[in-house]
């Protein structure tokens, strides 16, 4: 119907432009929310498909589930049409034409027979051709022989028809990847107290621990999903440095994370479902009770790192790893402690015994220094008179790396250790025999 004729019929009609992006976003949010009914939720261009095989009994049967889903969506302010059938295509068609229908197993064809051919959602040209041939109902199309249909409309149309009639089945592809482990708790009354939510997470972590233990695994990445009663969903993820399944530790990490959230968890009218998912797991040796004290200490340190990472972000908790290079600023790296694998390289000292330190304690981004006559230099506006000096130590850049990446380039540097009249010790270098830079300070 054209807009003009619609307006003629109803002068009070309000018109607004369609906003596809907003629609898609809303549908995505709805799909997330439907996740609390079944893990298999797929986006259909105009709706949502849920595979409820095996999950309907949790809601007291298919009818009760469908009613609950419709009621909850209506409560959120949506107009809903829904149907449940053996195949996704049939369910999609029936939802359009027979709202609220539940097709018993194997009866898809009978349920579809009375619908107009448009319900098959075929290409418009095919639908029109069927109508012209006098096949106005799905049942009439289904009665024709397959060979006849294939010859006239092609194999694609026939397979589409078979899907709709429940004779063939294409599985829906879920929107979210299914996590290997998930446990959840549903509440009759929405909960809003943080302590209670954390207690629930701990309880769920206990269930999860049992599942993980059966397979000898521990979780490296977990996600807690909070389903709010009004449909909003919040996901909180944590990571651990080593596979873990101790409920107390996991609860503590979530507590840290919740405490450090930039926008706190808003319970609104409360959460009606809390779910805990292990997104990434690794093999984890069963923890013996008679660990030595050093192993216990190591474990405690690991937990400390996890806690700090949950609070401040893993990029802020760092550990040193040696690198195989003699370039001073690249000889070590501070890497996130949670992911840092143990290094095979040993820490090599440039200093030989009885010698003074050869490498600075604190390393700076090289800062230009002006050399003044009479063994003096100016750094950050202060003139230092040099009392002792040692050098040069020539450090050539790694030309062989310069070929493959940009790290090794640059001119050779001549390093000097200097001490000023107050005893402050500096590490300076001269580049190209001309420019001076301060690169670090010694204790």
């Amino acid at each position, binding site marked *: 119907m054209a807009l003009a004729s619609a307006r003629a019929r109803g002068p009070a009609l309000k018109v607004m432009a369609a906003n596809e992006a907003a629609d898609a976003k809303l549908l995505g949010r709805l799909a997330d929310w439907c996740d609390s009914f079944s893990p298999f939720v797929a986006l259909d261009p105009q709706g949502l498909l849920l595979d409820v095989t095996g999950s309907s009994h949790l809601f007291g049967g298919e009818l009760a589930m469908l009613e609950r889903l419709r009621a909850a969506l209506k409560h959120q302010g949506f107009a809903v049409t829904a149907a449940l059938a053996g195949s996704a295509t049939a369910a999609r068609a029936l939802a359009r034409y027979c709202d609220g229908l539940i097709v018993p197993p194997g009866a898809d064809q009978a349920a579809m027979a009375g619908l107009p051919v448009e319900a098959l959602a075929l290409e418009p040209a095919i639908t029109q051709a069927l109508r012209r041939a006098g096949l106005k109902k799905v049942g009439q199309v289904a009665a024709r022989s397959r060979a006849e249909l294939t010859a006239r409309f092609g194999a694609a149309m026939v397979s589409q028809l078979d899907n709709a009639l429940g004779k063939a089945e294409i599985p829906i592809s879920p929107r979210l990847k299914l996590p290997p482990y998930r446990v959840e708790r549903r509440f009759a009354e929405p909960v809003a107290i943080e302590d209670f939510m954390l207690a629930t997470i701990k309880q769920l972590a206990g269930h999860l621990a049992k599942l993980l233990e059966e397979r000898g695994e521990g979780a490296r990445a977990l996600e807690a999903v909070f389903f709010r009663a009004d449909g909003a969903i919040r996901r909180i993820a944590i990571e651990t440095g080593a596979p873990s399944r101790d409920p107390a530790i996991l609860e503590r990490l979530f507590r840290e994370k919740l405490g450090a959230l930039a926008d706190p968890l808003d319970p609104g009218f409360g959460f009606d479902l809390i779910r805990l998912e292990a997104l990434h797991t690794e093999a984890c040796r069963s923890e013996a009770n008679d660990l030595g004290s050093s192993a216990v200490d190591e474990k405690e340190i690991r937990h*400390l790192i996890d806690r*700090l990472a949950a609070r401040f972000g893993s990029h802020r*908790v760092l550990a*040193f790893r040696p690198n195989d290079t003699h370039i001073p600023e690249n000889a070590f790296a501070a890497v996130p402690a949670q992911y840092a694998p143990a290094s095979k390289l040993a*820490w090599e000292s440039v200093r030989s015994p009885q010698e003074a330190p050869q490498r600075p304690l604190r*390393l700076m981004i090289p800062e230009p220094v002006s050399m003044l006559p009479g063994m003096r230099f100016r750094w950050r506006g202060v003139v230092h008179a040099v*009392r002792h000096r040692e050098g040069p130590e020539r450090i050539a850049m790694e030309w062989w790396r310069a070929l493959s990446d940009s790290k090794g380039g640059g001119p050779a540097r001549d390093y000097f250790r200097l001490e000023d009249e107050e005893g402050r010790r500096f590490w300076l270098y001269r580049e190209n025999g001309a420019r001076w830079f301060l690169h670090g300070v010694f204790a």
Partner: protein
Amino acid sequence: MTGAMEKIATLRAVLAPTGRAQRRVSLGRPDGVLAGGLRRGALHEVFAPPSHEAAATGFVVGLAVRLGGPVLWITQDYALLEHGVQAATGLQELGLDPARLILLRVPDVTSALRAAMDGLSCAALGAVVIELSGESKLLDLVAYRKLVLAAGESGVTVLLLRFSAQPSVGVAETRWQVRAQPSPSSHWGKPIFAVELQRNRAGPGGSWVLEWSCDDGLFRSADRGAVVSASGERSPAAALADISAA
């Protein structure tokens, strides 16, 4: 027989804490006024006058080596630009194994204190170093007391390294002011500090010139070159003597 068993139990109790849990670690010369050394599980402040930050850092590294165990080092983001990042190679040359170090970079003082409390609850750590630049109202009596209590509970030592700041409240076990000290002309370049003990709960203050010996991890008195014994702790024999006296 039961008497002997009791005695063994008492002996055990006395001897048990000599591993990691020694109450004080020796710093050489200053041990005399420190009642035997730097107390574990307490708060120690180290102040650096402007442009002597590296020396103060070196002194704190020395303390951390003496205390032993893993170290959590908390720094503020912008301070790293001003004073430089901790260099693993330099730390290792001073005797602090880089593998023992956990670095935490925090945006502000609130986070630093929060993280320090987290660290202090982990008894496996040897020390928590909090490096703070400038004055902050957040570092009030309450914050200090919280740190002191947490440190006392877990036995982890807090080393509060403060740059461009003035001492304010006096809750710390000890407060040090550390400057770089010009080296003696012959073997120059070793870490030498002019330390001033400004506050000391266990006794009077004092000033010393200490040299950090990278090879054996000891503070030596630089003016005389005298070595002070590494084990400033009570010997098991002294404990035995106590028991027999009792």
